[in-house]
């Protein structure tokens, strides 16, 4: 069984300040973890993924996430927010044990204040 919890449904930050979107996961097996972004009226875009290699993962648009097994967390960060970062972000877990199904978190809406 696997699940993912996004701890904040909404996050607001000022432009130029750091972004932190929190995600905790549960998985019976070694997990793969993903962050997807969904801009308004657009499809889902993969930001980054953790696949049991380096625990600090760098993605597109300056985002990165750190896999912490002891804390079962995979928080998404960005040093400086840009107006174009305003979107819905989904943390996703999948099992590495032959299960291709993705389990989505409930999403975090990121608002950027000018």
């Amino acid at each position, binding site marked *: 069984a696997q699940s993912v919890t996004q701890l904040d449904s909404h996050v607001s930050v000022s432009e130029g300040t750091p972004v932190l979107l929190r995600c905790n996961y549960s998985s019976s097996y070694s997990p*793969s973890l*993903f962050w*997807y972004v969904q801009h308004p*009226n*657009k*499809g*889902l*875009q*993969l930001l980054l*993924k953790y*696949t049991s290699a380096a625990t600090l993962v760098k993605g597109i648009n300056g985002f990165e996430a750190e896999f912490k097994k002891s804390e079962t967390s995979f928080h998404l960060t960005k040093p400086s927010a840009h107006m174009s970062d305003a979107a819905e972000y*989904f943390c996703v877990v*999948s*099992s*590495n044990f032959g299960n*291709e*199904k*993705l389990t*989505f*978190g*409930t*999403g975090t809406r990121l608002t950027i204040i000018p």
Partner: protein
Amino acid sequence: SAVISQKPSRDICQRGTSLTIQCQVDSQVTMMFWYRQQPGQSLTLIATANQGSEATYESGFVIDKFPISRPNLTFSTLTVSNMSPEDSSIYLCSVESASYYNEQFFGPGTRLTVL
């Protein structure tokens, strides 16, 4: 990454009718997936479609309501049958990555409104 298109991009339908959504991929893929995203909600997997076999449905979804076809390795359809306003959602198809089996790429979605 794969390039995925969906048709229609949006539609407004009457209660009791059916709508077929098409998903086209620019490369051959073994597994395709159909998801539903209800308003303000996250994504829920409807079914997994492999070419040459019947789709596998998740709990809460049945073939009579959401029949799926997978005639070849680049195409799939999802039909939403006998629609009600509760079916108003975004429907997305996705495909597995060719380089990493747990990674999926998503189409742009079909926004369905049922009146």
